[in-house]
């Protein structure tokens, strides 16, 4: 079933298991109402997130991507979010070069106790994406080229995913 047309946009979240996924759980337990657009993919650590995942998601038709990890210095794996921060900051600056509005991507830090903060993060980001509207489809690009780009992204440049 696709996202509800006219009501929702396609927003994908990558959340680290220990802080932000827990924070989203805390928000649920506290019944902090949020928009329904976001779909969360759980990863062990924000350091696990390859920036190419985000590109792939945006090129495949997502209207927004949100990444959230543990607060810097409070990573469950000691330093994963430092790697994430560096990679994601570079990615954010790189997006306009690819013709993608950098406002469609954001990263933040939410701890497992910050249910209310998670509610705010989701609400603000969803509003931000709705203000931008649906992402432009890559209609003028030939399907072959698009498939090639998507293929290259999922392979990580010269890498062959296992």
């Amino acid at each position, binding site marked *: *079933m*696709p*996202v*509800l047309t006219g*009501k*929702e946009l*396609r927003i*994908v979240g990558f959340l680290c298991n*220990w*802080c932000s*996924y*827990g924070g*989203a*759980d805390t*928000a*649920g*337990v506290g*019944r902090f*109402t*949020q*928009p*329904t657009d976001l*779909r*969360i*993919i759980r*990863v*062990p*650590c924000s*350091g*696990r997130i*390859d920036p190419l*995942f985000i590109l*792939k*998601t945006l090129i*495949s*038709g*997502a209207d927004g991507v949100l990444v959230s990890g*543990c607060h810097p210095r*409070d*990573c*469950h*794996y*000691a*330093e*994963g979010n430092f*790697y994430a921060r560096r990679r994601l900051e570079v990615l954010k600056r790189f997006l306009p070069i690819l013709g993608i509005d950098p406002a469609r991507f954001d990263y933040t830090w939410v*701890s*497992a*106790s*910050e249910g209310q903060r998670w*509610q705010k993060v989701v609400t603000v980001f969803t509003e931000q994406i709705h203000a931008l509207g649906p992402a432009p489809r890559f209609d003028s690009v030939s399907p072959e080229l698009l498939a090639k780009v998507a293929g290259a992204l*999922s*392979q*990580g*440049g*010269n*890498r*062959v*995913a*296992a």
Partner: protein
Amino acid sequence: MRIGVFVCHCGSNIEGTVDTAVVARTSLDFPEVVYATDTMYACSEPGQDGIIQAIKEKHLTGVVVASCTPRMHEPTFRRAVERAGLNRFMFEMANIREHVSWIGKDREANTNKSVDLVRIAVEKLRRDAPLSPSKFSINKRVMIIGGGVAGIQAALDCADGGLEVVLVERESTIGGKMAKLDKTFPTVDCSSCILGPKMVDVAQHDKITLHAYSEVDSIGGYVGNFQVKVKKRATYVDWTLCTGCGACMEKCPSKKNPDKFNEKIGPTTSINIPFPQAIPKKAVIDPTTCRQFVKGKCGVCAKVCPTGAIRYDMADEIVTEDVGAIVAATGYDLFDIRKIPEYGAGRYPDVITSLAYERLLSASGPTGGHVKRPSDGKEPKNVVFIQCVGSRDKSLDRPYCSGFCCMYTAKQAILTKDHIPDSQSYVFYMDIRSPGKMYDEFTRRAMEEYGARYIRGRVAMVYPKGDKMIVRGADTLAGTQVEVEADLVVLAAGAEAAVGAPQLAEKLRISYDRYGFFMESHPKLKPVETNTAGVYLAGSCQGPKDIPQSVGQGSAAAAKVLALFSKDQLESDPQISRVDIKRCVGCGKCIMTCPFQAIKEVEFRGQKKAEVIETVCQGCGICTSTCPQGAIQLSHFTDNQILAEVNALCQS
């Protein structure tokens, strides 16, 4: 693969806002899903039996349960599929409660979102492989950080259980806040009489190593095998020689320093043993006030010390302790009462904290147990207690209740009457919170037997008038303003996270809340565990607690450590990184980025390759996103799996 999908109602928790039958029916359209149903409570015994039965009857090879968060019941369901004969890792969860049904009421949108979450779980499961854990041996030593009553209890219980214990204490003596108390509620037991023997037990226990005046510098490793660097701060006294005789304290010429142990009421010497029952009973020099350090000459203590223990050139020392588990019991600190200028703390000497008042009441305190007010040493006749100073106050960002202040204020009102029979106590309170065995009876005794006058209302200001303090506040029951002439004002300062608690949490890799209190694994069911395996909590570091609660948690944490150490080997989580040796080019980037030194370089047919040390890998996957070849993949979070989830969301 033959996948079964089970969509849980969770009573009305999920079914109330998600059409679970529709979710189940729609999942039948997903690839390789051969069976789908909705179920009332998937985690209940009949629910689990239903899953097991379906696995057997439908010959399922993988299971998706759409219910609550995997952080809650993933282990439960993994065990269930294992009972049915599947590998426990052929299982995925879709979180349709915390992330769907509880955060919105739109049934259509929720149902739709739940279908999407099941879809990505199915796509992930299709790429899962069976995994089996390997075993690793553990170091059965435990470190307790913090030597207050919670830490002491945890240390003694672990040591009595046969474990070697390393106790690290920041101050020069163990005992914590409880050692400063005069009496305890609701029995009015003498605090040092019940704590003292436990402190002695710690000192004499042959299984406990005590590092006092020490702090945790850094922590490496993981459950079963932590390496903790402990910084032993310079005491400038050789503790192997110091006998605690106190000759140095008698002769020390620098006598006018604020006494930290006595909450800065009364002076103390630069070389000091905090109190007579200190454990270890060893002297420490404060280099910020000692004349030898400040002026460069004195040396009196070195001359009088009968064992020649003084070492002015001592430096901090780092010792490394290898332990298998860590209990954090770092306690609390007091709210800084100077943050409420209306009450005048800091400006008027006769406005003090309740802990300082405790020292005035104590026979081992600066006044020898005679209540004398700090300004002029007179015995106060009217004592006003103000409760909730830095508790339950949103304007100060302290919205939480500190819990034990109502009780100790009642105790102090009782003790005031005991010490000064012609005195009168007044207590300004918001609500009296005394849930606990014999607690409410105790506060009633303070009012009825000891005549403490309880006034329900907040205090607006405290100001001096002559040699008295005027406390002006509201009496909300009578609906009037009141002014009380006080000789002494005692503020029931709220509990705050201990100084340095967030920094320690970061070293322990555990979470803390916005106030600095450590986060437990589950607020109800795992109160002393953390989300980091092998790290446990006890006492007020998790949130304000009174003595019985802290002792209970100390014992609980010890029980958890003993249970962990009841096995000689632990099973490692097999969701770890694996190297595809054909793709690895031996660049070594994964070795550099791994935070756990879990990847080593090996030679394979004359070529450099990376190899993961199975039991050391913690499964973060930083290496996977670093590898330029995609050669190192984190099991169950492979590139292919995450991209399949992305595809499922974007191309549906």
